[in-house]
């Protein structure tokens, strides 16, 4: 997936590029915007899958760029802007934008909305793995259960999310903070102590299917499987 960033603030451009690259997108972010036609030409040459467009650019307006791009190609466009009046939002959508995100944005939210637009426009099936296995123990996301050989045990939503993240990073420690953040992103709003309770319950469930010491704890580092 190729994303084209049109943003004049150097810091935001650079950090946005890092953020998207970390999320495994290919990113093009030109540093200068001479004119509307020039930028449009750049976009056409690159043929990206998605354009992130700032509205307030020096001398030119993002709305004009959007109109120009729309004349030539049908690439999805997301407006990123600090303007926030309903008129601007309406204007953006009328000019052919696919989404409108106001600054300052939350990085996870931004990534989620980019993914949503890409999914909608490309019909891209999410490549999410639903079955994880490590040391005989497998986690079935679809069935929400944990199994070893023939033995099964059902998980609650919270427990499954905890294991989901751990299974995504086998062999590395996942800090408690990262775990809680991940849970919050998945709309499970719990605190540190409750996390400990859930992990203790998980250990019991693991024990019931005959697995011990599957989740390793290290003080100050977090959990590892």
């Amino acid at each position, binding site marked *: 997936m190729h994303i084209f960033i049109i943003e004049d603030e150097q810091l*935001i451009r650079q*950090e946005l590029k890092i953020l998207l690259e970390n999320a495994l997108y290919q990113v093009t972010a030109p540093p200068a915007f001479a004119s509307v036609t020039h930028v449009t030409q750049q976009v056409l040459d690159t043929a990206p899958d998605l354009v992130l467009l700032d509205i307030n650019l020096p001398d030119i307006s993002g709305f004009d760029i959007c109109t120009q791009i729309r004349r030539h190609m049908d690439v999805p466009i997301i407006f990123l802007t600090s303007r926030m009046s309903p008129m601007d939002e309406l204007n953006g959508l009328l000019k052919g934008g696919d989404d409108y995100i106001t600054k*300052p944005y*939350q990085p996870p939210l931004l990534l989620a909305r980019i993914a949503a637009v890409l999914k909608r426009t490309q019909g891209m099936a999410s490549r999410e793995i639903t079955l994880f296995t490590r040391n005989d123990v497998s986690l079935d996301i679809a069935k929400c259960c944990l199994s070893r050989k023939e033995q099964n045990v059902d998980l609650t939503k919270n427990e499954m999310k905890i294991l989901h993240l751990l299974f995504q990073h086998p062999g590395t420690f996942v800090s408690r903070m990262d775990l809680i*953040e991940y849970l919050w992103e998945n709309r499970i709003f719990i605190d540190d102590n409750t996390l400990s309770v859930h992990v203790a319950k998980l250990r019991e469930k693991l024990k019931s299917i005959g697995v011990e010491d599957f989740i390793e704890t290290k003080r100050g580092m977090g959990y590892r499987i």
Partner: protein
Amino acid sequence: MKLTDFLRDKEMLLLLHLVCMCLAAAFLRLTGYSRTNTILFLTLWLLLLAAWLLVTFVRRRKFFREAQRILGKVDQRYLLSELLPDSIRLEDRLYREMLHRSNKSCIERIRQIEEKQRDYKEYIESWVHEIKAPITGIALLCNNRRGIAAQSTISQNVESSGQTASETASVSKTDYLTISLENQKIENYVDMVLYYARSEEVYKDYLIRETSLEDVIYEILDKNHLLLIQNHVQADVNCQSTVYTDRKWVAFILNQILQNSVKYRSENPLLRIRAKRKDNSVLCIFEDNGIGIREEDLSRIFDKGFTGSNGRDNGRSTGMGLYLCKKLCDRLGIGLFAESEYGVGTKLYLEFPVSSYIKDVRKARV
């Protein structure tokens, strides 16, 4: 205007007439007029004078009554000089001319101040938009660096190389977290400025549409997740209602309430956010188990600049948050009430009206 007041006003004139009458009577008597004739002459004089005074009084009273009536009817009272009834009297015309000039300068001054205020407001709004770029930059940078720091901690740990290196990495991770949190505070204060500047003219800037309360709640919880996790807050959300309102403004209001709950938290903070359907409204209940509000403070929490005993103990209150919430709620037609038990927790109720018209239209469509 009373007759006695009027007569007192004409004191000097009456005195003059009295003196003239005395002189005239003395003169007539001396020049040989009879007593009856002199009395007749004086009576005639008095009658004429009385008639003249009466007519003047009635006309003046009519004029001022009319002016009073106009003054009572117009809402911009400084425009009186334009509306005064016509008068042939020189004094009236002169006063009117002076009033006119004085008012003109007053109106000019008002325009000037209005313009200045508008300029200032526009500047504040554009400033807020400008400041959001660096805030976004800092937020993104911290988020990225935090990720990198986390990765390096893990990899260094796996290789179990150099204890010090991993220590510095983990220190910088918490530093980035702290910067992120402080940055969010800045963002929040900046938002308050923007909404304060706009609070007078909500109607210019809203877009009423069907809004899912749950989505708004999730949005503000997401936005504040670092702050909430840092403070060990748990949240329980159950609000599957939709309301007709402006999403952005409601998000701002709920965000202020959330900030307060975090600021005045106690042990094991828990937020419970629920929605209740009522006949003609949807009630959103935002409950925390924080330190609560003292009974004597409760009625004043929505006042501007009121910090209460909690605020004084806390030392960081500006008394603006809830004041703004109330103001915006009033503008949006949302009811806002608080209930609290000191030491137990606080409940804030947001009551969103549901128009029966919309319900009817919907029913008709179904």
